[in-house]
């Protein structure tokens, strides 16, 4: 039974695209067939983070408008054979995405994949609404910072009212994914703690991704962080989160950076 999962946040720059790529790759590494769909029309970036930017021929809008067939637009990952990408369009015509068109494509993707991961644009406009419209589950990416938490709360309200599931009287399964977390700063009372965020949002936790240089390193070279350096702290955190999505019970820990000998001797902070 295929699952449609939207990765959303309201606020921009919190790590939706990074998380979509990392979770998609981690699910694929666990043997699931996965498609990641970029809903950010006009500002697509999932192709770049996945390292597939030069292979984009057709996109989501082409498929919605019937210019291309779905299999023509789908791009297979070079590293994992069961990971696919459906890129967004770079044209500015956002109105080309229709509710019915997206519904049809999501329906078709459901028959072909175990997981359909929808990378939502920031904001609460049309693109974000359509990305969450057909979702069964939602990952709400949140930074430990007031504006991000506020926007996450707003998005949670929309997931509970504007999705097809909500309109049918069912519930979208929601998870909070906390990214850019710094355990040391939280311990010093300089950053909202995990407990603070979960209490405020009243939504279960999917994972805690520590602030890390590895995230930028991975996007620099166009590789999901879970593939680029599987031993890194963020990669381990994303892999644990992906296993939780698959229904496994995994202890909730914040993976720490492994510090090299030189760094340890010099007392440098890893992150």
């Amino acid at each position, binding site marked *: 039974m295929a699952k449609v999962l939207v990765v959303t946040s309201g606020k921009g720059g919190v790590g939706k695209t990074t998380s979509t790529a990392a979770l998609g790759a981690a699910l694929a590494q666990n043997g699931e067939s996965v498609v990641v769909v970029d809903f950010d029309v006009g500002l697509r970036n999932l192709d770049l983070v996945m390292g597939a930017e030069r292979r984009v021929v057709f996109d989501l809008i082409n498929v919605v408008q019937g210019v291309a067939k779905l299999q023509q637009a789908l791009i297979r990952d070079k590293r994992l054979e069961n990971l696919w990408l459906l890129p967004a369009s770079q044209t500015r015509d956002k109105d080309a995405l229709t509710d019915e068109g997206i519904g049809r494509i999501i329906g078709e993707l459901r028959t072909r994949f175990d997981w359909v991961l929808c990378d939502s644009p920031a904001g609460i406009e049309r693109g974000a609404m359509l990305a969450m419209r057909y979702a069964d589950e939602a990952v709400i990416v949140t930074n430990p910072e007031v504006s991000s938490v506020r926007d996450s709360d707003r998005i949670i309200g929309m997931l509970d009212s504007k999705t097809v599931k909500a309109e049918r009287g069912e519930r979208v399964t929601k998870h909070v994914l906390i990214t850019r977390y710094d355990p040391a700063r939280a311990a010093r009372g300089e*950053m909202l703690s995990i407990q603070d965020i979960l209490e405020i949002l009243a939504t279960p936790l999917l994972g805690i991704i520590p602030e890390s240089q590895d995230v930028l390193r991975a996007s620099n070279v166009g590789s999901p962080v879970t593939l680029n350096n599987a031993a890194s702290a963020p990669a381990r955190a994303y892999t644990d989160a992906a296993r939780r999505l698959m229904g496994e019970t995994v202890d909730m820990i914040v993976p720490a950076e492994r510090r090299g000998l030189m760094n340890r001797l010099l007392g440098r902070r890893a992150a």
Partner: protein
Amino acid sequence: MNLLRLFNGRKATAPVARERLQILLAHERGLRGQPDLLATLREEILAVVSRHIQLDPDKVIVRLDRGPTVSTLEVDIEVPNNFEQTKVHADRRLGALVPP
């Protein structure tokens, strides 16, 4: 942790963030629950007044002003000049049902 704070002289700001968020979100969630409050009020006021006076639905204006301590609900209904007569006609039509 508190000792640490004493030494580096910085105040913990996370509790402030938490409190501000809790207050703000409690307010925003309240608004979200009743986004059409004004529309509902307008509709029901229109229905009640229309039972007695013939009204142009566009001439019913309902406004809510939120102030720091007190909020005001302003209801502005424009009625035609001969509205008493309209009502009398209506009473006659209803006949004995309406007491004089």
